[in-house]
């Protein structure tokens, strides 16, 4: 299970990098980020974290009932 968490975090990280790169890096006359691009990447990253936390919250609310039932089934199974 912990392995899955590491994998999911890495996936989030790499998806975030790809998204902010695609949305912010548009000037290929330089090898390093321009000031404008760097500011864009920072905002993109901050906003995405807030955005995905919000979706995560909605998702958790949605799943609470379902997971409750599953947990119960498992503990009944284990106690037999």
């Amino acid at each position, binding site marked *: 299970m912990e392995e899955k968490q590491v994998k999911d975090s890495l996936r989030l990280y790499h*998806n975030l990098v790809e998204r902010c790169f695609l*949305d912010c890096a548009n000037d290929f006359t330089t090898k390093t980020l321009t000031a404008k691009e760097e500011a864009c990447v920072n905002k993109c990253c901050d*906003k995405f974290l807030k955005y*995905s936390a919000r*979706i995560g919250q909605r998702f958790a609310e949605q799943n609470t009932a379902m997971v409750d039932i599953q947990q119960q089934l*498992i503990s009944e199974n284990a106690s037999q």
Partner: protein
Amino acid sequence: MSYFNQQQAASNQTFMQLEHEMEAMTDVFNKIISSCHTKCIPTKYSESDLNKAESVCVDRCFSKYMIVQQQIGSKLQELSQNVQEMNAEAAARASQ
């Protein structure tokens, strides 16, 4: 198979199912993340915060995604029941 082994098999199956469901949930979560970003977040990035309009859009987007998932899920389940009934009828006719 002994009683113990049956219990073991049953709880392994539950574990497998849980793992599959968690994988599917991660998959759905990532699809919503990417879909609602497209629908609600402009790629100009003029500020770090999620503003009011964006937040409201995100909540509605999530809600609509769930409804579409529900609607299509019911449709597919209905279809699969129709197919099963047709198969059962065909099998009954064949065994007469």
